[in-house]
């Protein structure tokens, strides 16, 4: 009998992807449901901004958790969910940005430009969003081939910077209570820290070849 979690069949992977697709849309469904049922509170635009911002960040961190999870569990197929997670992060980032441009500023571009230049928290959020665009554009198999594995990987390392900028964006926008951004910062630190540990472990046999059995 094959172990489903270690080595799922092609069909099982399709099911996993379909499930993830639906799960990824649940936050949006909840937002729409709240909107229809007068559940967005006294300041709906602020609610939508915070909601979509939060899910962008959750999406980014979930994407970043795939590699560590895969290495720890040995479930290598998880890598096949990573693109969709990344694209969901981008999707919620687009909603977040649209909320800001449309609902919050109502296409007052002068105001938007001023905000992006003058408000550090907007500056870093904007930078994170802009950096996400090339990653989304090069997420297809065709683009991956065109760039070649090495180049593609180097480009997609931008995700680390994007996640850091996302957390900084959150940290700088709260008035005083940094509990929430701190939690996200810690999760991000763990996700990035694990990578360093893995890197160090891989190097050990190279540095000390005498431990290798002949």
């Amino acid at each position, binding site marked *: 009998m094959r172990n489903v979690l270690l080595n799922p069949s092609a069909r099982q992977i399709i099911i996993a992807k379909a499930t993830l697709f639906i799960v990824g849309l649940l936050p949006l469904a909840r937002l729409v449901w709240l909107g229809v049922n007068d559940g967005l*509170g*006294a*300041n709906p*635009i602020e609610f939508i901004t915070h909601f979509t911002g939060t899910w962008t960040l959750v999406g980014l961190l979930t994407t970043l958790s795939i590699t560590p999870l895969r290495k720890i569990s040995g479930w290598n197929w998880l890598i096949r969910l990573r693109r969709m997670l990344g694209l969901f992060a981008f999707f919620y980032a687009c909603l977040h940005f649209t909320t800001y441009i449309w609902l919050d500023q*109502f296409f007052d571009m002068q105001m938007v430009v001023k*905000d992006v230049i*003058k408000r*550090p928290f907007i500056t870093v959020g904007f930078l994170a969003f802009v950096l996400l665009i090339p990653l989304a554009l090069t997420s297809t198999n065709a683009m991956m081939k065109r760039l070649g594995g090495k180049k593609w990987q180097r480009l997609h390392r931008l995700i680390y910077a994007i996640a850091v900028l996302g957390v900084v964006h959150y940290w700088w926008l709260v*008035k*005083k209570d940094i509990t929430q951004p701190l939690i996200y910062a810690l999760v991000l630190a763990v996700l990035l820290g694990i990578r360093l540990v893995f890197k160090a472990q891989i190097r050990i046999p190279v540095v000390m070849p005498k431990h290798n059995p002949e």
Partner: protein
Amino acid sequence: MLIKKADVLKAADVTPYEIYLQRRDFLRAGSALAVSALLPGVAEATTRLSGIVSSPYSTSEEKTPYKDVTTYNNYYEFGTDKSDPAENAQGLRTRPWTISVEGAVKRPKVWDIDALLKAFPIEERIYRLRCVEGWSMVIPWEGFALANLIRQVEPTGSARYVEFTTLHDPAQMPGQRSSVLNWPYTEGLRLDEAMHPLTILAVGLYGQTLPNQNGAPVRLVVPWKYGFKSAKSIVRIRFVEQQPKTAWGRAAPSEYGFYSNVNPQVDHPRWSQARERRIGEFFKRKTEMFNGYGEQVAQLYQGMDLRKNF
């Protein structure tokens, strides 16, 4: 000009929705009181205020619905989310309650809240409220000019500022168990600001006593300053010579100055103050100098650099 005399016709023209809400609240208050008689100290609901007179200082702008005024609150003593105070403030006991008026005064006095409620005629003051975060409301407060109380205690010559202190009781105020701010919450005004006829001590809103999440049983309302200047659930009013330290000023001196007058030209270091979103409206509107009360208060700041004294 934005401030108009309360229009008599308009006042009689109250929207049925509010009356409905108030009646419903009244009924709910009744049943809640019955319950709280069985459980002393728990869930003191609001009760109707009587004998309210209207005021020429009221605006005729559309009022923010009762529900929004009482569920979207910044009151860190009960949590930092806007919805926290409505959820967590219900355990606050507002009786017995005393307010100590002290410091540089000839006749200091410890007021019992029920005596204070009867001491001065209660006026309705429909004021704009502008939060430092960039949103605003229009709230029908009930209260009386702080100047009434100040005259009674006769400040001495060395009384140049007034300091307000909020209750400090982590058992009742769960937010105080974390150190987001330096508790207790304190605020301050210059004596002439405190004496200004627009400055009130509010004891109610929408014709009812204050809900706990709005600062029961008594709070300050200074409509030309950002909302956080208006200290809630006050237990002490002290007259002092030196400019008092304020809770937000201690937390972030570069962001929250002592004056904190609403000023569209002076941005918060991290966001713009040029516009605001009136709760319930889609488009942002321009923020007015002194929140639209410039005609009444601008002379208080004549010759001052409001960029420096933000």
